[in-house]
């Protein structure tokens, strides 16, 4: 049967990894999803429950892909509860990717926003000097630190963790660390994905220093292909124009960092 990337392809979850008490990684086989670009996402159908957008996570086996999901509302909890052997539907990949510079790079991720950052790390050149900044509320919400270290074995690099409560790594908001880093260093590229307020401040800090910065946005998504309109941010459609946007463009968008639309399409404050 031919594949249509807008039609859910059924995949069996083969392995489930607990990352934190609320975050799990579900691993499955699929050649297309194994080879998406960093920032690209899939619409993931949990039969009988819901369908939700998920960044496509890397795995250490060729031909395998994964989703790293935090349980939150009913949809994400449904996915979180999928056991090995169960089936999910996957369509996509959707969206664009990061414009990866060379030289000194700063990656800023929070929570499951680390997913596209991990994939981005698989694309850096051995000559690149890479700083990964991981923000979390507290120690038990930190994950992918070891993976980042591992992916950067060949590089000059540092992996910095900040926790709001100081229970691990540096104490404080990750965006304060961004401010500090971009004030002290030049970066050829700054990349961020995570809570919108984190991305907003990261983009502001980096942009104010004249750095090239990109963020991968999240919005309510129904179609993933630019039909339904639910993911619009100003005149941009996150699913089709993004999810990755240049910081410069984002700062001219009056909704970025301030509003998102609810399921009825009404603007709500972040």
């Amino acid at each position, binding site marked *: 049967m031919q594949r249509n990337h807008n039609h859910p392809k*059924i995949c069996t979850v083969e392995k489930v990894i607990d990352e934190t008490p609320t975050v799990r990684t579900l691993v499955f086989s699929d050649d297309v999803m194994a080879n998406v670009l960093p920032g690209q996402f899939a619409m993931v159908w949990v039969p009988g429950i819901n369908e939700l957008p998920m960044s496509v996570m890397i795995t250490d086996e060729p031909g395998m892909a994964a989703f790293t999901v935090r349980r939150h509302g009913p949809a994400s909890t449904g996915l979180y509860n999928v056991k090995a052997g169960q089936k999910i539907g996957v369509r996509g990949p959707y969206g664009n990717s990061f414009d990866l510079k060379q030289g000194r790079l700063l990656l800023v991720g929070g929570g499951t926003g680390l997913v596209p950052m991990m994939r981005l790390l698989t694309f850096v050149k051995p000559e690149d000097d890479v700083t990964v900044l991981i923000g979390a509320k507290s120690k038990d919400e930190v994950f992918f630190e070891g993976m980042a270290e591992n992916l950067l074995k060949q590089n000059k690099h540092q992996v910095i963790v900040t926790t709001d409560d100081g229970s691990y790594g540096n104490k404080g908001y990750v965006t304060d660390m961004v401010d500090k880093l971009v004030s002290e260093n030049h970066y050829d590229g700054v990349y961020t994905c995570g809570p919108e307020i984190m991305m907003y401040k990261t983009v502001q800090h980096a942009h104010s220093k004249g750095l090239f910065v990109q963020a991968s946005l999240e919005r309510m998504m129904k179609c993933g*292909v630019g039909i339904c309109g639910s993911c619009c941010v100003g*005149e941009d459609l996150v699913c089709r124009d993004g999810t990755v946007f240049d910081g410069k463009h984002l700062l001219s968008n009056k909704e970025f960092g301030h509003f998102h639309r609810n399921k009825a*399409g009404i603007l709500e404050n972040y």
Partner: protein
Amino acid sequence: MEPSLAASIGKIDLERPIMLASGILGISLDVFNRLYRSGAGAVVTKSLSKEPWEGYPNPTILGLKSGGWINAVGLSNPGAPYFAKMIEPNTDVPIIVSLVGSVPEDFDFMIKQFANCKVAAYELNLSCPHVAKVGLEVGDDPELVKKIVTVAKKSSDVPVIAKVGLGTTHYLNTVGAAIESGIDAITAINTIRAMAIDVDTQRPILSNKFGGLSGSPIKPVALRCVYEISSKYNIPIIGCGGVSTWEDAVEFFLAGASSVQIGSAIGDNWINVFDDINKGIKKYMTDNGFSKIEEMVGLAKKS
């Protein structure tokens, strides 16, 4: 002389003959502006109800392996009052406001919300195939259609369009009822009720089970509806259903449509589809010696 793309749908005058169809990207004024700049002659809003609606849970849309889409978004929308506020600043874009409701009063209420807005027309959605008590369930009742159209016409001076589809009564009766009550134009057609089942999990894919089929699969059906309406009635028609190339658009003109709407093709080809189609129509007109869109309208009926 360059052919002109200007289109008149009765009293509605547009610079270009292709519009955004209802429900497609239709929830933000910023996006409307962008689409207008991209070549849409007008934009039709998402169908609005009196109150905000969340719509159905996902999955709400899927692409079919053989082409086309099925959706059951469930008419999620922010409600007419909120929406009217949002488009109040609009001065440039011809906005056609699509409305759903169950009783005539709903439409009166909603139209009054737009008193301070520049609205090119109202489009009454009498044809959504997958939400109870509105859409087709209204369109399938010609007596109710008459009442709704009568009220909508009274609620403002703006032209009113009825959007029809294939329901459980003959759509030509719905068209007839709307015309009797003074409708200004007809949009044909909405999506066709359909479904998709996943064989691996043995269940319907959409959360609502049933949805509406759109895109290329419905084009030949939409085209015959336009041809049938224009053969039976003297009313401006907006063709809708599966338009994705200039050739599709021209087919609809020849069948009797004064303009066309585009929905699913945006999912397939993104928004440059407007500009591509405009250019294609213009070239076709040049090649075939047409100077105005209306010279093509209904030409296939002459053969």
